């Protein structure tokens, strides 16, 4: 059953993130952490269409995209812990996750940083004659940036195989959508002649359907497409955010449309046995516990590792010095 798979991914993301929040607050995860909780249906619904040979660019809120793509939770957790076994060997961290083997071209600490890269990946696929599409995730904050407009233009002009996925969670840090944007998204996208669909980002099946429809266009070589998923982040912008810019009530209201709750209820209504669902959830819990144990038990990188890896070959700035 398709929905069950989507639910499994959403469940994995949710419970992974809840662990991350706890571990961060306990001081075990360094750096900044931006949680994806509430937005799971977007990553799960969209990336269910991801195939080998496809690529992805993500944002500072990229754990969900990585997990939906199939990045091993152990490698991901180890990276968040800054350990040698992490997907980026401890050099990237939460905001800068890469998994080249799976086509993950990077989470990004720069808002909209992934957009031109996605366009370039689309161009590269075309030039090399490869099949494949590029999934480009970004938040509503990215709509303020010039590179977004330039990326839409170039992708449309050259008819590149890029699916732009706007996760509109209504806020860019403390700033509400309307406070930053003087345009309507469909009109913006329409100006570039790019096909546009919107989807309820709490409804994983709807996201899945909309993205499926747009991807048919993208994969047929007719150029980019754009999906806007209306979603909400249940947590603050980052762990520790005092959240003075929105009301408790607004958050409570949004939480009532929890994508996991909706999918779960639908599965049960379709006749799936409660026990079966719980068995699946237990398996996910085990996997995630294992990821935490793996991360905590992994060694720190050797400090000297910091000095290598900028180029393909080692470079010494001052050859008369020991590193």
């Amino acid at each position, binding site marked *: 059953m398709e929905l069950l798979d989507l639910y499994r991914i959403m469940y994995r993301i949710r419970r992974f993130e809840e662990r991350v929040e706890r571990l961060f607050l306990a001081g075990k995860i360094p750096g900044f952490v931006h949680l994806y909780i509430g937005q799971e249906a977007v990553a799960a619904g969209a990336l269910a269409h991801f195939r080998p040979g496809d690529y992805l660019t993500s944002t500072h809120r990229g754990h969900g995209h990585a997990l939906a793509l199939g990045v091993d939770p152990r490698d991901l957790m180890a990276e968040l812990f800054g350990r040698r076994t992490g997907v980026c060997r401890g050099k*990237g961290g939460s905001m800068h996750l890469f998994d080249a083997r799976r086509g993950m071209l990077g989470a*990004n600490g720069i808002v909209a940083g992934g957009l031109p890269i996605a366009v370039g990946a689309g161009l590269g696929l075309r030039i090399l004659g490869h099949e494949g599409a590029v999934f480009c995730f970004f938040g509503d904050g990215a709509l303020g940036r010039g590179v977004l407009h330039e990326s839409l233009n170039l992708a449309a002009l050259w008819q590149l195989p890029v699916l732009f996925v706007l996760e509109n969670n209504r806020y860019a840090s403390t700033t509400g959508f309307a406070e930053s944007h003087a345009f309507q998204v469909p009109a913006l996208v329409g100006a570039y002649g790019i096909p546009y669909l919107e989807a309820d980002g709490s409804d994983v099946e709807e996201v899945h359907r909309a993205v499926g429809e747009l991807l048919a266009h993208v994969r047929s070589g007719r150029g980019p497409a754009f999906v806007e998923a209306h979603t909400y982040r249940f947590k603050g912008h980052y762990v520790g955010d005092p959240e003075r810019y929105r009301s408790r009530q607004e958050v409570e209201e949004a939480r009532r449309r929890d994508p996991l709750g909706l999918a779960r209820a639908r599965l049960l209504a379709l006749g799936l046995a409660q026990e079966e669902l719980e068995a699946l959830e237990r398996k996910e819990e085990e996997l995630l516990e294992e990821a935490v144990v793996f991360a905590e038990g992994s060694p720190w990188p050797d400090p000297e590792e910091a000095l290598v890896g900028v180029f393909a070959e080692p470079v010494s700035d001052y050859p008369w010095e020991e590193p």
Partner: protein
Amino acid sequence: MREITFAEATREAMEEEMARDPRVFLMGEDIAKQGGIFGQFKGLPQRFGLERIRDTPISEPTLVGAALGAALVGARPVLDIHFADFLLLAMDELVNQMASLRYMSGGKLKAPVVIRAPDGAIRSAGAHHSKSLEGLFLHLPGFKVVAPATPRDAKGLLKSAIRAEDPVLYLEHKALYPRKGPVPEGEYLVPLGRAEVVREGRDVTLISYSLTLHKTLEAAEALARDGVEAEVVDLKTLYPLDWDTLLGSVERTGRAVVAHESWRFLGPGAEIAATLEERLWRKLKAPVARVGAAHVPIPFSPPLERRVIPQVEDILMAAKEVLAWA
């Protein structure tokens, strides 16, 4: 004297300058509703309103260009950039437009803009949020570059920056915001372009600024326990540089170490070391040593970050090397 934090001191500076001069305004992302992501603007929107304390979209290049435009018609913009790393998004506006404007217009136009940019590595923020970019901006003519180390200077330098008639890059190390220090009650200015000998000594001059100054002072303490008297100079303004104070100190001690968080390779220390050697080579008792970040992007994992960013031990080691020359 009362002790307040670096963040409070910079807020006082903003508040006093905005009250003094109605042309001064502040804009940036998340500054009004949140009071700044480091809490450095708390209370200002209530006092000055959302016209003069202005939240903006995520549009760094346009914000830098717009600050320039506002300055050209007589306003005094202060632009807050979340993290100094994001200055890189706006290099064209900063360098091609803002920095060269007075010169290119034959002195007929000016760009009195202050850009406040938190820099430096703290708590594993990773490569996109940890850079110290002063070396880059020092290389490009047209910016005054300021990097305070104490709450007292943060306030006095920011006020001077706002009154300056040219673009000022005002770099604040993120780790400094919560740091407390004595700050005078009344109004005062700390002039741009002047360094200060913050600790006297006759054996070696340690030169630094911003957060690294505090590590340098710790190194000086450690040297004192070994009977070495280190003089410490806080540069405060990196351009224009106060060569008089620097040359005066190094002439007395005959030895120098420059320490900063910017990359060492072609970093500010390289220019300082080269100039000290040009001017004082007969009087130097040892080559000038430099301490700076390793030439790699700033890594995430704590042991890696620590390895790349200069620590007290690194400054101490450099000082000992310089002292070891006969």
